[in-house]
Structures are given as C-alpha cells and as structure tokens.
C-alpha cells in the first residue's frame, strides 16, 4: 500500500526533486503551487502526508496547517512542515499548530523519505 503525498511548494525545482525521491520510494505524489491550491487538492485526494512549505503565496503554510487541523475531513492528514527559515519560533509555531514533523531546507533526501514513510505508516 503506497503512501499518498501532497507537496505544497512554490519553488518548482524543490517540488520536482521531492517528487522524484518520493516516487522512487514508492509514494503516490501530487503537487500544489500555493496554499489555496494545496487545500483544494487535499480535499480531493485526501493524502496521507502533506509536505508544507511555510513561505507559500496566497495562503502561507501555517494558515494551511490551521485549516487542515480545524477541518474534520482533513485533520487526520500528517503534516510535515518544510521551511527555509528554520528559526526556533517557527518550529514552536509549527508544534503549537499541530505539525507532525519539521524539516529545514536544505534537507537530505534520506531524511525527508524516512520522515514521510514514518508518517505514512502511522496513518
């Protein structure tokens, strides 16, 4: 049973590398370019894991996370916050909002794959 992953990331290249490594690991991967699109896609495909960039256009990652956690249809999705800022208060915000994992850019591919598979196995 493959893990359904939704990537919310506005940087095309990063999204592409994520798609590649996750598909290699046997995941089913979808991609959204901004926050609103991510929410729309999540409602359609109900992914197991959502990889969420913080600095997203239209609706930032934290707002998306808030909506996910308050929506009974989406609340079961495991969320991995991906950020280039990596400051401690971002990590605290993520924890407070109910993120399941927190990875800073640049990441190692194996780290991301391990995290996603772990979260996918839980759900």
């Amino acid at each position: 049973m493959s893990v359904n992953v939704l990537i919310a990331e506005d940087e095309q290249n990063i999204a592409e590398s994520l798609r590649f490594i996750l598909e290699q690991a046997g995941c089913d991967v979808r991609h959204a370019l901004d926050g609103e699109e991510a929410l729309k896609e999540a409602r359609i495909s109900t992914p197991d894991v959502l990889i969420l960039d913080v600095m997203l256009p239209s609706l930032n990652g934290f707002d998306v996370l808030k909506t996910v956690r308050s929506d009974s249809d989406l609340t079961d999705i495991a969320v991995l916050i991906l950020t280039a800022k990596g400051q401690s208060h971002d990590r605290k915000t993520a924890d407070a909002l109910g993120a399941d994992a927190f990875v800073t850019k640049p990441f190692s591919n194996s780290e991301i794959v391990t995290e996603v598979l772990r979260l996918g196995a839980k759900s």
Partner: protein
Amino acid sequence: MSSLNVVILAALGYAVVLFLVAFISDRSTRSGWLSSPLVYTLSISVYCTSWTFYGAVGSAARNGLEFATIYIGPTLVFLGFYSVLRKLLRIRRENNITSIADFISSRYGKSDLIAATVTIIAVFGAAPYIALQLKAITTSFQVIGGSSDTVGSAPITALWVAAGLALFTIIFGTRSIDANERHYGVVAAIAVEAIVKLVALIGVGLVAVYHVADGPQDIFNRIAETMPPPEEGFGVRWIGLILLSGTAVLCLPRQFQVTVVENDNERHLFTAAWLFPLYLFLMSLFILPIAAVGATTLPPGSNPDMFVLTMPLAAGRDDIALLAFLGGFSSATSMVIVSCIALSTMISNHIVMPLTLRRTAGLSVDGDVRGLLLKSRRIAICGILFVGFLYLEFGPQSAGLASIGLVAFLGVAQVLPALLGALFWPRANRRGAMLGLSVGFAIWTYTLLLPGLLADAKWWQQVAQVGPFGIEALRPDALFGLTSLDPLMHAFFWSISANVFFFVLGSLSRDLNPLEQLQSTLFVDAFRSGSEGGQRLVGRAASADTLFDLAQRVMGANQAYGIFRNYAQAHNQKAEFPVPDDAFINHLERRMASSVGAASARAMISRVAGGERISLDELVEIADETARLMEYSTRIEQKSREIEETASKLKSANERLVQIDAQKDEFLSQVSHELRTPMTSIRSFSEILAQNNRIDDDKSRYFMDIIHDESVRLTRLLDEILDIGAVERGDDFPVTLIDPMVALKRAVDACRGLAASANVTIIEEYTDQPTTTLANQDRLTQVFINIISNAIKYNDAVNPKIEIDTSVAAGTFHTSVSDNGSGISEHDATLIFDKFSRGSKPTNEKGAGLGLAISRTIARKFGGDVVLSPKSKTGAQFIITLPITSELHNQSNMEDALYTKPLTESI
C-alpha cells in the same frame, strides 16, 4: 420662731467670721491648706447658689426630678470633659488670662470688641442672677424673721444686704489688680461657705427624714405620693437642661473665675474632677425628701422655694432653720462676691480701659492706670449690685427662683461656641466669634430676657401674641412657627443654632490674620506650644525706661520693678533693667495682660513700642529668602525637566535601535531564507545524482541544468546582497555630470536579448531635449536595466510589450517604463520596494527581490526617485525621476546630499 434680731445677729456674726477668714487667709498667702485641692474644689461649689439651695427643692416640688439636671450637667463636664478643663487651665496660665472675656478675645486676635461683647453678655446674664440672690436672702430673712413666708420685696433689707456684699467684695476682691496674685481671702471664705451650705442642707434633710417623717421608707412613700410621675419630665427639656447646666459650669464668669483663673496648680483639677461631682451629689441627696416632706406637712399654698426654711420651722427645729438660713446666706453671698469680682475685672479691663485708651489716642498712656483700674472695678462692683437691686425691685415678680437662674444660664451659654471654637477649631476667627456672639445674644434677649422683664407690659403682651408689627413668624415665643418647645428650650434652640451657624459661616468667610493665626495655634495646640511662642511675628522696640514707665503705671512701681529685675537676672543680664528686645517686650505684655487683659495690654505696649506686625526690614528679608528659595526650586524644576527630556530622547533612541536591530535580524533571516532556497535544490538534486546510477542521461542532464541554474542564482543573490550594502553606504560610485539618455539607451540595449527571448516588444519614445544630471553612469544604467528587465520578466500578457518614454518637466528628467501585463495589486504596490519582496503571484522568476530596493536607493542618492505610478490603468508603470543639473559647481552640494543621508533610512 427666732426673733428677727437673733437672725440679724447671726447673719452679722457669720459675716464677721467670713471677714476674719478672708483677712487671715490673705495675710498668709500661698501656705498650707489654702492652696490644697480641697479648697479649690470647694470654691468651685460657688456653682451652688441660693437658687440650688432653696430653688432646687422648689423645682422638685413643682417639676419632680427635673432639678437633677442642674447637677448632672456639671458632673458630666467634670468627669467627661476633664481634658477640656485642663486645656483651659493651661492656656490661662500661659497667656495670663484674667476672665472668660479675656480668654475669648485673646484667642480671636486680642480683639477688644469681642472682649467688650462678652462682658456685656455676662453683665446682662448676671443682673437677674444677682437679683435672684438678693431676693433669696431677703425672702429668707422675712421667712425666718417671722413676718411672712410669701414672696415679696423688702427694699431696705435688700439694699443693706447689697451694700454689705459690695463692701466685702471691694475689700477682698480689689486689693490687687494682678490676676496672678489670686484672691486667696475670697477663695478661703467661699470654701468655708461651701461647707456651711452643705452641712445646712444635710441638716435640714436629716430633720425631714428622721424628725418629721418616719425614716427612709416613709420618705419614699411621701415622694411617690407627691411627685409627678417621672416620665412626664424626661425628654427634650431634660437634655436641654443638662446641656445648659454643663455649659454654665464652663462659661459663667464666676465659674471661669474660680475654676480657671483662681487655679494655681493644674493637678488640683484632678481632685476636683471627682470631688466636685461628689459635692453636687451630696447637695442633691436630700432635695427630694425635703420637697416631699414639705409638700405633705406644710399648708397648701406654701412657697416651695422656702421649704428648706419653713419645713424645719414648722417642725419646731429653729436651730436647724437658722443653720439653713446661714446656708442659704452662704450660697447667695459667695455667688455674688465671685460674680462681682469676675464682672468688675471684665468691665474695667474690657470696657473702661479700651475706652480710656481710645480717648487718649495718639498720646502715650499717661496717668495712674493702676488707680484707674482699681477705681473702675470698685465702681463696677457697686454698679452691678445696684443693677441687681433695681432688677429685684422693678423686674418681673412672678418668676420662680429656678427659672431666673435658667435665663442667666442661657445668656452665658452664648459664649460656648466661641469658647469651644477657640480650643479646638484652628480656623475659627474673630468675625465668626463676633457674629455668633451678637446673633445668639440678640435672639436670647428677644426670646427669653425681654419676655421675662416685660411680662407685665401691655405693649409687649401685644407683641408676644401677634408678633412685632403683626409678623406672626417673629413672635418671641414661637420664632418661625416653632411652637412645640417651652419658652426656655425654644430660646435655647434658636439662639444656639443661630450662634453656631453664624460662628461657622463668619469663620469660613475670611482667612485668619497673622495675629489670629498665632493665637489660634497657641490655643488649639496649647499642649504643644511653649509659652514663648509667637515672637517671630512681632517686631517691636522701645527703651527700657519707657517700658518701665508704662509698667509701673499699670502695676505699681514695686511690682513693675520686680518684673524688670527678675527678668534681667533670669537672663543673666548685669544691668538693672533688661535689654528691651522682642522677648522681653512679649514677656512684659503677658505680665501686663494679667492685670488689664490681653487686648488692652497689647494696645498699651503697642503705643510705646510701635510695630504691630513684622518690621519692613524683616519683611524684605523674608521676601528675599522666599525669592531665593523659589528661584532655587525653579532651577531644580528646570534641571529635572532637562533630565526628563534627555531621558525621553535616550528612550526613543533606544527604541529606534531596537527597531533597527529587529530590522537587521529580519534582513538576515530573509537573506538566510533566500540563500537556503537555491541550496535546497542543489543539495537535493546532487544527492539524487550521486545515489542513483540508473537515471537515464536526459534526466540526469536536466537535473544538472537545474543545479547549474540554482548555482547561478545563488551567486547573483550574493552579488545583490553585497551590492545593496555598497549602495546604501553610498561608496564606490563617484558622480559626474552625465546625459541620462546615454545610460538609458545602454540599458535598453542590454535588455534587448532578454526581451527577444521572451517575445516582448519594446516601444521607445524619447524627448530630444538635451539634459544633464549629476550621477554615476554605471549605477544609473543599473537602475534602468533593473526596471526594464522587471517589466519584461513579469509581463504576463499574451502579446507582451513595454513602452519607454522620457520627458522633461519642472527641472526633472522623467523616464517612464510601462507594460501591458496584469499590473501590480494595491497590496503588492506598498511592498515591492522592500527588500526581498516579490509579487505574490507565483512565478518562475528567480530574483532575490532586491532589485527595486537597490534601484530606488541609487536613484535617491542622485536626488531622484523610483516610483510606481498609481495612475496606470493597465499593466504597471514605473517612473524614474532625476533632477536636471547643468552646472558642475552644484556637485559639492550634491555630495553633501549624498553623504549626509542617514544610514538608517535605507536599512
């Protein structure tokens, strides 16, 4: 029945004994038992006059227990207001007060007007009271002499009695004029009389209980039989009478005389506080039994005021009756003697002296003041007794003893508000005291004194019935329609209420003058202030000889010399006379005050020593000091304001620093973010390539291209970051006079490749007006490239084109770069010039967002600007402005402008 001769003999004999006692006591002043607290207490019992001796029984027979109020009031005062009395004594001693009038006037700025007013009130109140004593003596003469027991006048007897009393008072009351030398003879005689009246009353009481009646049980039965039920008597009138008698024991001139003026040891008061109430208790013990026995054994219609005499006479105990007569005689004479001393002192000090001083206004006090004082006192004594006699002969005949006494009580009670104010209310002043006294006195006269005096006059009866001039509301016994109280309580209510009201109103209406202020402090804080207080306010000077001259005329040469010599010795001065400084003049004034009262002493001293208030020099000195203090405090205030200002500047600078620090953090965080993004792709793809051998060539080429692009982006980003630092610091670009068109054309040419690859058409429309501006060619080109390439890169139109125009207006060179794309949202328009900001639209463009910030910073360095035109309808329009400069000499100004721009503005 005793014959009249026996009675006269007994009275004369008793008088001789009193003379002897007084004479001997005066000789042996200040020794032994004379200055004991017992004598002091007994002298206070002058409170019990013939009114209490005879009248209390009468009152009990008529009104039951009501007579007790007259004893309860003073008892409460001595037990409960001990501290008030002590304060009175202390103030008296430290200010050498001679009478209650002197006390009040002293407190209210040593005003002779107040002193005179209080004196007049006291005399008015005393006249009927003295008449009452004369009446009691003459009536008792008639009763015991056997002529009649009906109340009536015996002019000759009364006149003889009055003359005898005047003689005694003059001999023992006006030997000296210094209040400090107390009237030991008089006090001793009064103490003897106090014992006689107590023994007499108890004797009569014992006769009533054990001789006429069959012991206590029978007495109780008789009381129950004859007395009205007590509940009829209790109520407003009871409270009123208790208040009134309590007031009287403080304010009656004779009580003030014996309790306050004649006291020479404050500790004696401690004994009096319990012994005097005990005396009153013993005096009242047999009143009811005598009244009950009298009422049940004597024929109906007998005058109850004379039961004390008629009851033992009817029982055949002539000896006890004679003793009772002597007791009544003692009560009356002691009251008259002390009253006359007190009143004559007040009249001479507060009426005669001020009038004399006024008559000799402008001249120095001359003549024998001492002689004048003594003479005026003697005349006053005779006058008072004569007025009393006249009142007895021609006054109302119907009133009982007790009611006349109560009229007098209420009269002197008018002094109480001013007295208590003097002791406890610092703000109380002369105007208030004067107003209160006058209004209270007027109402008392109108509602109580006149109705008694004129009871038989037809015209007054008319006034009493319908009010003066037919004004009902002003009826003397029902002011403003108040009819529920009996005449005494009615007068009590209105006079005291109005008195207090005007006293408070008057006091609040004006501030105290310096002398009132000083006296107020001395009185209200009597236990705190020293006796030498208040010198600071007075600045007077006179030669010692002049002062001595004045003093000896007031006090006699011997006493005056004594004062001067003692003072000099006490202050270690070698000369016979002391240095007449302020301290000595104040001392002398106080000593003189004990002879003539505070107001007169002050007036006399001021005559010879001048200066009522602070001298001009002192005033200037005080003003100088005040000015210095004020200046100093102003300087301090100024300093503190400056410090505050500096602190607030520092605070805002600190806030600014914190803000800049936060901006720096934000900048670094953004830099970090911008750097991490390309690095993420590079790392991720290089890991993919390194770990996967099976990726086909196309894909691996594609991934390597991404790695390359991101590396380039990273480099450019670092360049931009370094660049904005350089631009903001303003170094590294020397300015010269250049043609902006050259820079623009170079920029457009540089962008043509980009435009071609993005299929963007460039439309150019330039002005041909030649212009120059002061700028750096390369940097200006950079600005143009940045704006134009942005317009190309972010143009999302189907047929993308950009338009570049130039124009010259108002000394400014305008370059407009507009595109036909979807434009910039209002929200983005406010942000795009910030560092690291890119439009919110997702895009493939990889700028760091520093371009516009750099461009604007550069343009501003040249005195121009880069703005987003708010007017563009479609697409975005950026306008670059540059000031047109044709002269090189402006360069220096330019450089100033360049280098003085605050750094913080752009970071």
